[in-house]
């Protein structure tokens, strides 16, 4: 204890260079632990997002891409699949259930998912957990909406509240579907998956919002029309429902036909959906069905196996992760070497101090341990501040990551692995500090002692 006390006071005396050294260790620990933390969290977050879905069906694209946009809401869907194809797959006797998903709209930055009540019945996450409701329940009418826990929390919605949709995804959209209001019929229990960030509406309701069914209570004035028209090109690029946009423009253009709300009841089925999640009676049939989907003659489709797609994704990411990890380990080693350099260069000015300790009877071995204690203290402070920084940054970045990438990250970086990592850093620091420590030890031996 005496040695740690002496080491601590000695560090305080050289606080500027010690502080700078702690900063470099803090940053390198932050980087290394951050890379490991985000990787672990992203992986477990992704792995728990979808469960029980045997096949994801979408337009012709890569398995990874299909899974990323349909499940994790990362990126933008290209084409969709036709409703006829959906119906056909649904009628296949191997299929136990199928959930249609239609993406491309948003509500105040939250993505809108057009679907039906099968979603709440069959969609599972984590260890085969089903969705549950905090309040309210499933769609009871065409203009009902079921919102995720984060949406309810962030926007303060309760069941019975109304909301409108915006075209496109992103917080600012130029085209709002103000004409159709949705009523919150249910709020889902938090899942820690992108479901929390979603506004679920009925497919028919989504169609009506896009204007495929005349639902306008009020005429849209010219100005609005011009406004929308001006951005048509942009929308066409990032939106699957090109026809919908045109249909809406036609409606708006006519600006007449004051329809009643009840006409929605006649809602047509959507002509297209973005993707479908399929559950099978017998999982063994999944490869046969996947092949059938991939070879579907009337439309280019892709069937993605979530597990395989995830494995492909991690394989792809593995390379990047490894490079990041190698870089962060190198940064860490260089900062620990910097620590040794700092201690070593301080030895010259501390020769007298060492002499004094020796003169009062301190053994040379304690001089070595004193330098080691300083190195361990500095490193421990660097590690602590690095983890604290990681905690702050993940706390601050949590919402951003979950909204933009569907990755749910815990802000607590402390786990068995990170504690082991901290221990390894301490050991490496202690080993590198042997260089200045042995130098101090040598200079404390008789023939080197100078007053």
């Amino acid at each position, binding site marked *: 204890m005496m040695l740690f006390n002496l080491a601590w006071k000695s560090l305080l005396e050289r606080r500027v260079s010690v502080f700078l050294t702690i900063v470099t260790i803090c940053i390198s620990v932050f980087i290394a632990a951050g890379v490991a933390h985000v990787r672990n969290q992203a992986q477990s977050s992704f792995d728990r997002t979808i469960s029980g879905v045997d096949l994801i069906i979408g337009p012709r694209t890569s398995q990874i891409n299909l899974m990323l946009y349909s499940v994790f809401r990362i990126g933008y869907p290209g084409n969709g699949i036709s409703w006829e194809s959906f119906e056909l797959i649904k009628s296949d006797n191997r299929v136990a259930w199928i959930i249609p998903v239609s993406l491309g709209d948003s509500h105040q930055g939250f993505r809108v998912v057009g679907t039906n009540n099968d979603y709440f019945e069959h969609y599972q996450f984590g260890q085969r957990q089903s969705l549950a409701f905090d309040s309210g329940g499933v769609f009871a009418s065409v203009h009902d909406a079921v919102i995720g826990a984060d949406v309810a929390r962030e926007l303060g919605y309760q069941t019975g509240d109304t909301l409108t949709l915006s075209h496109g995804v992103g917080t600012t959209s130029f085209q709002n579907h103000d004409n159709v209001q949705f009523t919150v019929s249910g709020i889902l229990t938090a899942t820690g998956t992108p479901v929390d960030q979603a506004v679920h509406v009925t497919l028919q309701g989504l169609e009506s919002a896009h204007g495929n069914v005349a639902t306008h209570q009020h005429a849209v004035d010219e100005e609005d029309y011009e406004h929308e028209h001006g951005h048509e090109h942009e929308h066409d690029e990032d939106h699957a429902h090109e026809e919908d946009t045109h249909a809406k423009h036609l409606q708006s253009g006519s600006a007449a036909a004051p329809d009643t709300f009840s006409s929605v009841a006649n809602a047509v089925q959507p002509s297209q959906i973005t993707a479908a999640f399929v559950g099978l009676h017998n999982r063994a049939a999944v490869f046969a069905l996947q092949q059938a989907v991939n070879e579907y003659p009337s439309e280019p489709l892709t069937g993605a196996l979530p597990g395989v797609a995830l494995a492909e994704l991690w394989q792809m990411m593995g390379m990047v992760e490894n490079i990041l990890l190698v870089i962060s380990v190198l940064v860490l080693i260089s900062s620990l070497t910097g620590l040794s350099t700092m201690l070593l260069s301080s030895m010259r000015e501390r020769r007298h101090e060492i002499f004094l*300790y020796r003169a009062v*009877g301190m053994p040379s071995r304690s001089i070595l341990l004193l330098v080691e204690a300083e190195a361990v203290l500095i490193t421990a402070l660097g590690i602590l501040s690095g983890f604290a920084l990681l905690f702050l940054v993940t706390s601050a970045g949590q919402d951003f990551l979950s909204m933009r990438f569907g990755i749910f990250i815990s802000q607590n970086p402390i786990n068995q692995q990170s504690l082991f990592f901290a221990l390894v850093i301490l050991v490496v620091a202690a080993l590198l500090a042997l260089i200045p420590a042995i130098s101090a030890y040598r200079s404390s031996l008789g023939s080197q002692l100078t007053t």
Partner: protein
Amino acid sequence: MGNVVALNDLCFTWPGADKPVLTVPQFTLSNDRSVFLLGASGSGKSTLLKIIGGLMLPDTGTVEVLNTNLARLSNRQRDTFRAQNIGFIFQQFNLIPYLDIYTNILVSASLTGMKTSVFRNKVEDIMASLSLAPALLSRRADQLSAGQQQRAAIARAIINDPSLIIADEPTSALDEETRDNFIRLLLSTRERSGASIIFVSHDRQLIPHFDHVQRIADLNKAAQRSEHDAV
């Protein structure tokens, strides 16, 4: 029994040097005595004091302190022996500048395993006997005046009740008044504790305070030779 220090046929050469810096055929200091070693720097006195203090071992010859042959002790034992039996006072920088006085003295006490409660009482008594205010204990060493620092050095040197105090030019950084005060306190402390003292200085005015005077040049044949060489 009688001798605190006994040196025999001592010879020491710095590594890489071709001539010995120290050749002492014979030197003894008996119990409860004080010796004034007169010599300038470069006379080999620092080396001699380090050898007596067990910080270095001679190439040849024997060093007995308190009837213990220092060469027979392990490094670790020699360090403990020094902590228990020898108190050093140097010319300046006696204390770790960034530690408070309390911790500076505690370092010495902890090396002999003194209990904190015992230490606390003892250090306050010693401070009082050296006319140092107890409040100084919590001050950083470099915030004290030179005179206060040297007196704190006495406190540090005697905290473990050593049998031998080695003072290496302890007054040369002090002005005359402070110097006299320092000598008075050092010698009265010594008298109370019954320790022997080796006091090295080139200041002849201090000679009357000591039982015995010894020119280092007479002691160290190596230094004599080099003096002759110089002549």
